[in-house]
């Protein structure tokens, strides 16, 4: 592994240390320069790495060009060795680009977005962001599950810290806590999977795990491990039933939502499953579960998103829904499609969040879309880019979302047509709520206060640059994966990732049949038409929205309240646990434990009060007893034979 690759994660770490330790001394400009600069350098290096990888792939297509950096062992015990190893391969390098690229843009954006903070908090924010980038890089660069787990926990920590960035607000802290706890549930699954692997294989290296499985892992093991890993992915990537933290995580600053809770961290679960594609391909049961979970999440979240009024909540549920699509892709074996969707989703969802952030910034932290409207007049750049992102996420060709979503849907159709139909339904809902959001925000009349109207403005340049860049990427990002329908052999991404997914795909594609091109084209056309119809309907419906018109009832009310899932969890898990805790606190603790402890204490103190009388405190008598004891001891010790004889004789 080239040594410069090592600097990709180290630079953000350096930025974290500089900003974190020097937060009381650095100016905001310096902080922003360090924070964004480190990530930018990292991005440049990632670009080099990507170029190198591209050149290698070009020279030797289809070969595996993994580079491993293995400086020392993290843990070495007789039973197994866990190396500290980083790897860069095709999948990693792609993620590197996404993380550092989008990370840099969001750092840049944050510099403007967070400028109202005091310098120490500003620096703290950048330090957290840098730490997050570092952790995420470690996550994707790890060469075994333990290193990945380190990154996994690191990003979880950063997510927690950043959600609760404004820690003076109790609700935000509660949200951070919720995210943390939810993630822990998933992490437990991940950890169990690691332990399982260690128990069975004695190694967690990707190479070993994916290489030795044929000989050492039984199908049960594989199913169990993949399920457990999937539990981890569920937590991190906000799938049913562990998704509720993600909408709450919108409490954090908007750039954080864009970076962590839309573009990168939540896709860690996708990455993990894509990384372990070999295992998943051998576990059909798990795959089915993954697909169903993903699909259910996609639909479920989409329904909730239909009736949400908080701009970030809508986007959050949209994210959950899109993640569901990715899992659907993973579940049906379309790993490339899932990764492709991760990438395009990163572009447009980051863009959406940043756009939302821009809006929120302009609206002075007003997040209710019912109180916005007609912002296109004031914020043309935000408007255009937001619209492009909406088109991309809705899946209008030739925007990026179309290609990636299409790939997943096609794969789903091949696996089970029902998946496809439900997926299309979800896509329609996506289009609907996105354009509801768009229309309410940017079209119609302005419904906010006069004060807000007076201050409406386009965001500063550092905020718009990322918007523009991401908009361009959202538009053209899909062209790296043009399906075979349009041009044979044009799916560049599939070729690029082939070394990683080849073995996993090999297990799947055996016996899978392909759709004919015409059928595929028809399906695309119909879906696109339907989506367009939905968009038109949505835009027409909500462009003329006036304040107070919406009064949800029936199903809409249920949707507005997010299917009462939070309440369900509350009554299903939280309340019983509270009651159990109360039982322990009010009965077990004072009566049983305290009683036992105090009883022993009383017994001891009573006993010692009696024994105390032996202790006269006279040093002389102690010594006397000691000497006599020594004498007796020696006598017994060295004359035990005589004593034995004595006892034998007389007893």
């Amino acid at each position: 592994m080239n040594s410069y690759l090592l600097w990709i994660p180290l630079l953000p770490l350096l930025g974290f240390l500089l900003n974190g330790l020097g937060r009381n001394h650095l100016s905001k400009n310096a902080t922003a320069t360090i924070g964004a600069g480190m990530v930018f350098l990292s991005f440049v290096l990632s670009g080099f790495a990507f170029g190198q990888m591209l050149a290698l792939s070009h020279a030797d297509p289809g070969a595996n060009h993994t580079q491993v950096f293995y400086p020392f062992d993290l843990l070495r015990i007789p039973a197994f060795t866990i190396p500290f190893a980083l790897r860069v391969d095709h999948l990693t390098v792609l993620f590197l680009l996404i993380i550092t690229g989008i990370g840099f843009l969001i750092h840049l954006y944050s510099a403007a977005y967070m400028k109202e903070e005091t310098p120490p908090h500003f620096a703290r924010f950048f330090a957290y962001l840098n730490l997050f980038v570092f952790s995420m890089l470690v996550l994707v660069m790890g060469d075994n599950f333990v290193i990945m787990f380190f990154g996994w926990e690191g990003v979880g920590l950063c997510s927690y810290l950043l959600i609760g960035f404004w820690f003076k607000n109790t609700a935000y802290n509660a949200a951070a806590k919720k995210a943390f706890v939810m993630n822990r549930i998933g992490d437990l699954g991940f950890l169990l999977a690691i332990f399982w692997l260690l128990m069975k294989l004695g190694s967690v290296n990707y190479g070993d795990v994916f290489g030795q499985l044929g000989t050492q892992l039984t199908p049960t093991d594989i199913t169990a491990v993949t399920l457990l890993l999937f539990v981890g992915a569920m937590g991190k990537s906000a799938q049913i039933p562990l998704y509720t933290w993600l909408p709450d995580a919108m409490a954090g600053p908007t750039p954080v939502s864009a970076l962590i809770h839309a573009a990168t961290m939540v896709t860690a679960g996708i990455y993990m499953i894509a990384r372990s594609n070999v295992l998943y391909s051998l576990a059909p049961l798990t795959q089915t579960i993954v697909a169903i979970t993903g699909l259910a999440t996609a639909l479920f979240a989409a329904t909730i998103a239909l009736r949400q009024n908080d701009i970030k909540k809508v986007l959050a549920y949209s994210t959950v829904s899109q993640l569901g699509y990715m899992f659907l892709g993973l579940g049906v074996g379309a790993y490339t499609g899932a990764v492709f969707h991760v990438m395009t989703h990163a572009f447009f969802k980051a863009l959406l969040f940043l756009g939302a952030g821009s809006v929120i910034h302009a609206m002075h932290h007003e997040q209710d879309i019912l109180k916005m409207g007609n912002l296109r007049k004031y914020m043309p750049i935000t408007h255009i880019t937001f619209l492009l992102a909406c088109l991309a996420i809705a899946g209008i060709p030739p925007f990026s979302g179309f290609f990636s979503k299409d790939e997943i849907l096609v794969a789903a159709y091949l696996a089970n047509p029902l998946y496809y139909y439900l997926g299309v339904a979800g896509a329609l809902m996506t289009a609907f709520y996105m354009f509801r959001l768009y229309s309410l925000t940017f079209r119609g009349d302005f419904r906010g206060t006069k004060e807000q109207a007076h201050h409406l403005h386009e965001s500063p340049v550092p905020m718009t640059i990322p918007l523009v860049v991401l908009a361009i990427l959202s538009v053209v990002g899909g062209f790296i994966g043009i399906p075979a329908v349009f041009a044979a052999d044009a799916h560049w991404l599939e070729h690029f990732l082939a070394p990683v997914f080849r073995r996993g795909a090999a297990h799947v594609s055996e016996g899978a049949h392909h759709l004919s091109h015409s059928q595929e084209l028809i399906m695309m056309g119909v879906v696109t038409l339907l989506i367009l119809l939905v968009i038109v309907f949505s835009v027409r419906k909500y462009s003329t929205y006036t304040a107070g018109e919406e009064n949800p009832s029936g199903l809409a009310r249920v949707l507005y309240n997010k299917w009462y899932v939070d309440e369900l969890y509350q009554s299903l898990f939280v309340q019983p646990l509270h009651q159990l805790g109360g039982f322990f606190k009010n009965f077990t603790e004072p009566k049983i434990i305290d009683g036992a402890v105090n009883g022993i204490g009383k017994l001891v103190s009573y006993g010692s009060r009696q024994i105390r009388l032996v202790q006269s405190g006279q040093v002389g008598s102690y010594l006397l007893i000691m000497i006599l004891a020594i004498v007796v001891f020696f006598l017994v010790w060295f004359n035990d034979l005589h004593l034995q004889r004595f006892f034998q004789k007389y007893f």
Partner: protein
Amino acid sequence: MPIQYYIYFCLALFSLGIIGVLTRRNAIIVFMCIELMLNAVNLLLVAFSKMHHAAALQAAPQTTAGIEGQLFVFFIMVVAAAEVSVGLAIIVMMYRNTHSIDINFLNRLKN
């Protein structure tokens, strides 16, 4: 010189130290008797050191076998010096509080 003689001699000194500790109530004398015991042990260590050295000399002429015994004596002296400095400070403190150096006045570790 047979090693037993040294052992007997040192045992005698040690036992005298013990008797002193047991029979005297003057804290300083008790302390001195402890020093006496330490010295008995020191001498025995040196004697043993020389015993081992004599045994090892026949095998290897340049050996330093048994030197540990003498080094132990050195360290015991170090510890004894430290012990005396702290111990005497405590005795002075005790005298200042009780106006007596009877160790039996120390039977309560307060007041």
